[in-house]
């Protein structure tokens, strides 16, 4: 979406082009309709008036709220209910009316966001007025569901983000408040919360496509992964062998995110859209997760400190699998995703690209090593070494990819991972001060030289290509 400032400049320029005869009247009209330049007609004075009106409205609103709260208890309950409901309805209706006019869309969106907040206030006040002490997580989830419905109806990303935050807070409160949150259910709400890893994408992914919002996609992926990790944690607590649990925690989320496929969702997409709407974002998240996971497991104490984690009972696997459908669903999805990645492309043969293959190698080595270490045979030294090698490979690989594509952020992420790894190892192992000093010096010089080289040569070369 073009910024307001750009549109203003474009309008000014396009008018001049038309006067100078560079473009025809039809061409100007086409540009104007594409960028909605006519909606810009409002002058600075008009905007000032609108700002004054908004400030006035807010002040009047505050005065009404103060007046009502001063007399709140004296007002009969029925009147209070009517007041709350009519406030909610009027803000909503005003919001959607304004949304339909191109020149007041922002105001309309603001009002609809406000009405979603009023929805929460109303839910809480109704519970209070009728002395129903419901749970905090219940309130957040019901509020989030209502907001989500409106976000779908109007395809508004702002409401979608609010709904995501509410559901996330509700989930956290539920985990905190309800003992043994994974087992047993006193209501339908508990059933929904137990299947959060499945519910999150089901509820929010279609909205991400509907409103083409990257932030909603990112939050959905984040929420799904977080809920899946909670699930796997409960899985381990319920008697699943630690080897399985840790292997899944380390590799399932990045495997899923990397293999994420947009085209499954969009059978009727328009031609103007890119083929991969969210895949780049999903892959960035996969690499970020992988970097964190590898960095976290590159410390020696992670592998030397096993305690009594080693427990294996085949029965408990069966019981646990029966109890947690979402883990199975995501494992199957990840496998399907990777098979789909390897589908015959233009060459007509099955096979993965080199990047995919490298990543698959890293993931399988991570899963294999952690499974063997916690399930079969303790390998503290070997596993630490392997994970450090994998971390270095990831860092270098990401840097190389960044260099190839002239992508600054990926280059710096890879470099950062490498430097962080070297620093951590130097501080972790009790090396002499002289070695430490030398390492820091080399790291510093390498960062400066590599960074300068990248900024000098790769970026301009890439820019001149594009």
């Amino acid at each position, binding site marked *: 979406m073009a910024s307001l400032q750009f549109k203003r400049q474009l309008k000014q320029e396009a008018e001049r082009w038309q006067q100078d005869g560079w473009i025809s009247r039809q061409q100007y009209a086409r540009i104007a309709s594409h960028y909605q330049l006519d909606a810009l007609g409002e002058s600075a004075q008009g905007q000032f008036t609108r700002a004054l009106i908004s400030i006035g409205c807010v002040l009047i609103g505050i005065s009404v709220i103060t007046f009502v709260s001063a007399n709140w208890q004296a007002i009969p309950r029925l009147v209070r209910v009517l007041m*709350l409901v009519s406030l909610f309805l009027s803000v909503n209706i005003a919001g959607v009316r304004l949304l339909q006019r191109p020149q007041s869309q922002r105001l309309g969106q603001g009002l609809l966001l406000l009405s979603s907040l009023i929805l929460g206030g109303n*839910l809480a006040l*109704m519970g209070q007025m009728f*002395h*129903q002490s419901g749970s905090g997580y219940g309130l957040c989830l*019901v509020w989030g569901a209502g907001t989500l419905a409106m976000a779908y109806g109007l395809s508004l990303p702002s409401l979608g983000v609010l709904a995501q935050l509410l559901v996330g807070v509700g989930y956290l409160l539920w985990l905190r408040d309800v003992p043994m949150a994974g087992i047993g*259910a*006193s209501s339908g709400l508990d059933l929904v919360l137990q299947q959060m890893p499945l519910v999150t994408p089901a509820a929010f992914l279609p909205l991400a496509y509907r*409103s083409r919002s990257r932030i909603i996609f990112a939050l959905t992926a984040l929420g799904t992964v977080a809920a899946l990790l909670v699930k796997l944690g409960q899985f381990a607590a319920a008697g699943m062998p630690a080897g399985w649990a840790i292997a899944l925690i380390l590799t399932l989320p990045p495997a899923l995110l990397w293999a994420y496929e947009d085209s499954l969702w969009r059978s009727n997409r328009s031609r103007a859209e890119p083929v991969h709407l969210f895949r780049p974002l999903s892959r960035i998240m996969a690499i970020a997760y992988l970097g964190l996971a590898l960095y976290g497991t590159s410390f020696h104490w992670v592998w030397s400190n096993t305690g009594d984690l080693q427990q294996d009972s085949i029965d408990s696997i069966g019981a646990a699998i029966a109890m947690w459908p979402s883990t199975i669903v995501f494992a199957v999805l990840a496998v399907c995703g990777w098979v789909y990645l390897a589908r015959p492309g233009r060459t007509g043969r099955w096979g993965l690209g080199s990047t995919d293959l490298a990543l698959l190698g890293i993931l399988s080595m991570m899963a294999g090593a952690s499974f063997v270490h916690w399930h079969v045979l303790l390998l503290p030294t070997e596993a630490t070494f392997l994970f450090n090698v994998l971390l270095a490979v990831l860092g270098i690989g990401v840097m190389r990819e960044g260099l190839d594509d002239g992508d600054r952020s990926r280059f710096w992420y890879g470099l950062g991972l490498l430097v962080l790894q070297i620093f951590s190892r130097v501080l972790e192992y009790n090396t002499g001060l002289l070695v430490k000093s030398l390492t820091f010096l080399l790291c510093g010089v390498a960062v400066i030289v590599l960074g300068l080289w990248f900024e000098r040569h790769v970026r301009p070369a890439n820019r001149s290509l594009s």
Partner: protein
Amino acid sequence: MATPTPLHRRWAFWLPLVLQLGLILAAPARAIYTHTTGETVLLQTAPVDPYDLLRGYYVTLSYQISASDTLDELPGWQEIKEADRQSNLPLYVVLAPPEGASGDQPWTPVSISRDRPQLSSGQVALRGTYQWGRVVYGLERYYIPEDQRGEINERIRQQHLSEPEAYLIEVKVDARGQSAPVSLWVGEKNYRF
């Protein structure tokens, strides 16, 4: 960035709006249903912390039928406690009216079970949830009207010193075991909810 809603898709706004309205009105509707169809029951209660009432705008009430001392004597309680992993599931406490005709005595718990029990005449089943070794009923908060906060606070404090068992809550319990509070008795004084 949003596109404006076309007028021919008005349902896309009205449908969610009606849903949201339904969510808002669900709490009053349930309370009104329980009020109109429910049976009146008196329950023995006490404020959890009578010396620090004004932490919020409500009193947290602790019911005699929530306390483990009372529950320990009820048939069915041991099984529920032993199946500790099944926590957070609903359970039902059967209450019997006080003996004798006097209407100012609290009802007494008879039994407790996971499933809705068969009731003999006059009894009601109150639905609760097992949490942290206790039972909660969703009746634990009484929101104090702001203008009465000082007075109620003082009365509860005095009552606690002189006659601590004289707190009673009048609730309505409907056929599904759902409950809604009606009024709070502190000694002789009655506060409508």
